[in-house]
């Protein structure tokens, strides 16, 4: 059980039973049993205020994470997994898509070449060759990641505009 706990701790993200088996060389049955015990153990200790951590099911996977009431204390110390500079570039791509890399370069400068490469590696955008430049678009993974329920481009554009307006209005209050 402690071995499975070690695996869950170090993954830092939801992992499947298979991944845990692979990392620990334990059998599927054993891992599943250990996970159930861990969920119970953390739950009971959490309710007694003995730990801020919980083990919980996320889809078909399992994760070790902070209990909701402690989440705010963790936010500041854990970094964003996508650096801000990349967020900026991908937000432009999503807004203007399909957009030529050359056009993007005119907007923000030649840093885009590096950013596009990294964004492709992250799986957020895809590109196809078009003459001397590349045409860039968001991938379905991107929509999934940010929880967009639609992949309709116009709707997303509207959504971004709308959201920004609301944030601005709130800031001006």
């Amino acid at each position, binding site marked *: 059980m402690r071995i499975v706990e070690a695996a869950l701790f*170090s993954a830092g993200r939801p992992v499947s039973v298979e991944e845990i088996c692979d990392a620990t060389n334990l059998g599927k049955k054993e891992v599943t049993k250990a996970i159930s015990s861990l969920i119970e153990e953390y739950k009971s200790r959490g309710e007694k205020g003995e730990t801020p951590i919980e083990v919980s099911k996320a889809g078909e996977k399992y994760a070790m994470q902070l209990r909701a009431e402690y989440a705010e204390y963790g936010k500041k*110390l*854990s970094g964003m997994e996508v650096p801000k500079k990349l967020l900026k570039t991908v937000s432009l791509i999503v807004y203007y898509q399909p957009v030529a890399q050359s056009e993007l370069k005119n907007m923000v400068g030649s840093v885009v070449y590096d950013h596009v490469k990294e964004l492709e590696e992250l799986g957020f955008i895809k590109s196809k060759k078009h003459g001397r430049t590349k045409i860039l678009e968001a991938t379905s993974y991107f929509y999934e990641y940010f929880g967009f329920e639609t992949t309709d481009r116009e709707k997303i554009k509207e959504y971004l505009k709308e*959201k920004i307006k609301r944030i601005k209005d709130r800031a001006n209050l």
Partner: protein
Amino acid sequence: MKEDIISHILMHREDATHKEKIEKYIDMAGNSSMYLKNPFDRAIALTFDLVMEEQLDPWDIDLVSFSRLYLERVKNSGMIDLITAGRIVLMAWKVLKLQSDHVVSSLEEKEEEEDEWGEIPDWYMEDDGYFYTRAVIENGPPLEEKVRRKGERKVTLIELINAFEEVRDEIKIKEKRRKHRAEEQEKFRDQAGRAAGENAHQENIEEEIKIILGRLSKLNGRAMPITEICDIKNKEEVVMTISSLLFLAREGKITIWQDNFPYGMIYIKKVHNHEKK
């Protein structure tokens, strides 16, 4: 005939495009200079040639197939042109040598990878150090990585939107600045064109200072790098800006400083009237 021979001595017989390419090479070579009359000999010799010219990987050649094929041919024809046969066998030998060179060098590479550490000279250190260094290299490092959580969290939609807004503002400012600079340059060019005669130089300086003063008025008392009021890629503009700034500094209207001499950024700050003595 030619196709048969090539596909026989090539290991990747299923690779049609590869075969076609080689045939093309052979045709090209055959048209220019060919010393072997027999198409069989010519096909083989040219295939070997390609290997030696590094157009073809030596490992694409199946030397066993080749020797079987060649022996058959000698048996069937009953007579043999020894000079040609000698040439072809020599070429086959060269291909074999290339193949074995590959094996040797890849083995050497592997050995190097495993044994990249030098001999530790035992006279070099005190006993403790010698023992430690040897043990580290032979038995492995005495360091263990601590396993921690990857403390990264997903990015939220709000963060994406904030990033979008930020970058849009940045682009807007950039665009404005670019436009402004273009206008100023246009103005400057007009003025430079108008100025002529003996007074041109004096007039120019006065005009230039006016332009720069105009740009400086947007400082609002804060310090800014010189890049904000002129296009540093435009040499003429840089000269004009700096000479005007030096004049204004002497007049006590601004202060100028540089971060690191001689390549650091130059900053300008307007001196307010009440600050003047």
